[in-house]
């Protein structure tokens, strides 16, 4: 999870490193810690450290972690020569390692040699049938080939064994959303909210899915989850604020023809609209007129 402070720290460090201000190793450590995907920069700065003998030897045992990081980044950037060299160095150092075997499989994947990669992974799985990362690689391989239904099948099988793996749940949810299978995606997001209730982004994604599904009940639930996102972020999530406005407007349209006994209090949406207006005034005052027009169209601003 990337918090606000860490994000600012990362972007500061990024500009510093890009402008040649040093701190490349700290940047690479932060990228690894936050698990963000900055493959081009990792490749560039990682290689500059690895090619500098003095810098490389000062890392000590972290050198091998850096080789692995650069190898994966190189595969992501399609610099297969670099990836191959890195893996060769690692193989020389750790001849029996499974982790290096996994990297070799990933290199085959990056080359597009799917059958060989599959063979490599299954031989690794024979040694250790409960290797989670290799199971995940197989899912990713199916996705990379475009067989999304196969990927879903693998992922469901995987989740039957490793139910607590929230990364896999997230991946499954995202695949379902990409296939517009919103009911299934909603189930996955429910799992995610159960396992990590304090992450506002899962609440937000669940609310998005519910809003897309439509229907009065789903819309009301979506509004609740947008509200909980606002609660968890202290009102600093613009998407959730917009979500509350859209939900209330949609609920208002559906409930127009029906009985008006259970009409909800209009406070929430007018508060959200006020918060949005304030934020736009602070950060993008030239777009404030657009916002007020849009909110008027939704009939939520007071």
């Amino acid at each position, binding site marked *: 999870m990337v918090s606000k402070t860490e994000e600012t720290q990362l972007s500061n460090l990024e500009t510093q490193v890009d402008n040649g201000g040093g701190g490349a190793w700290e940047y690479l450590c932060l990228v690894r810690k936050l698990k*963000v*995907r900055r493959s081009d920069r990792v490749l560039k700065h990682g290689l500059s450290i690895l090619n500098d003998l003095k810098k490389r030897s000062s890392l000590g045992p972290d050198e091998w972690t850096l080789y692995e990081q650069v190898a994966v980044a190189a595969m992501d950037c399609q610099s297969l020569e670099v990836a191959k060299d890195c893996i060769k160095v690692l193989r020389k150092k750790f001849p029996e390692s499974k982790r290096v075997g996994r990297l070799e499989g990933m290199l085959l994947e990056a080359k597009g040699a799917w059958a060989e990669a599959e063979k490599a992974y299954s031989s690794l799985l024979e040694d250790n049938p409960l290797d989670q990362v290799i199971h995940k690689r197989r899912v990713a391989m199916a996705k990379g080939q475009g067989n999304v239904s196969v990927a879903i099948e693998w992922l469901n099988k995987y989740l039957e064994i490793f139910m607590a793996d929230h990364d896999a749940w997230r*991946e499954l949810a995202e695949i379902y959303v990409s296939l517009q299978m919103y009911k299934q995606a909603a189930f996955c997001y429910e799992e995610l909210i159960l396992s990590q209730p304090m992450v506002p982004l899962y609440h937000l994604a669940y609310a998005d899915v519910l809003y897309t599904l439509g229907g009065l009940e789903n819309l009301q639930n979506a509004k609740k989850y947008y509200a909980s996102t606002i609660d968890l972020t202290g009102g600093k999530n613009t998407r959730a604020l917009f979500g509350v406005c859209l939900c209330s407007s949609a609920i208002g349209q559906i409930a127009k023809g029906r009985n008006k006994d259970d009409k909800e209090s209009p406070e929430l949406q007018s508060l959200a609209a006020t918060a949005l207006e304030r934020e736009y005034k602070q950060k993008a005052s030239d777009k404030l007129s657009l916002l007020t027009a849009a909110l008027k169209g939704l009939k939520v601003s007071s």
Partner: protein
Amino acid sequence: MNNIALGLVPSCSVMRPKNRSSLIVVLVTRYTSGTPMIGWRSVQPSSEPIPELFPAGDRKRVSVEMALGFAVGVFGVLILFHAAYSTIQYRGLLKIMEEEFSGPPMNVVAELLLGLVLCIWAALTVPGKFLSIQPHSEENRIVSLPANSDFMIFNHRGKVFPLEMDVKLKH
């Protein structure tokens, strides 16, 4: 005397502040002829991989604050000891004067309260800065999820535009 004092107070203690700054402050407390001597030395670890959360100026301020807090804490404990000593003395005096013990004298109570306040203040400053527990504070507010790197695929649009890198891995 020296040995007892050394037994009571560790001669050297390494403290690690809770905040993730890479500073380690080594407190060296030496007892020479009964009077406490506190020496300060700040040691920078050689190559900490942890990225710094605070810039250098901030760290310096934190260490100064900690030094002050520690000194105040020592002072507070000394005051508490003095209060205990005064109470014992007062009871001895009462025994000589053959009076009943009704309560501690005013100066002891004042000393106790002062010592309590100073010790609390030191205990709150010395271990480091407090971290926020509110979910919407800047440190805790999650703004983006990590890339799901276990499911990373290489068959993406970046393949069509490969990065122009002429650097190779040298050995």
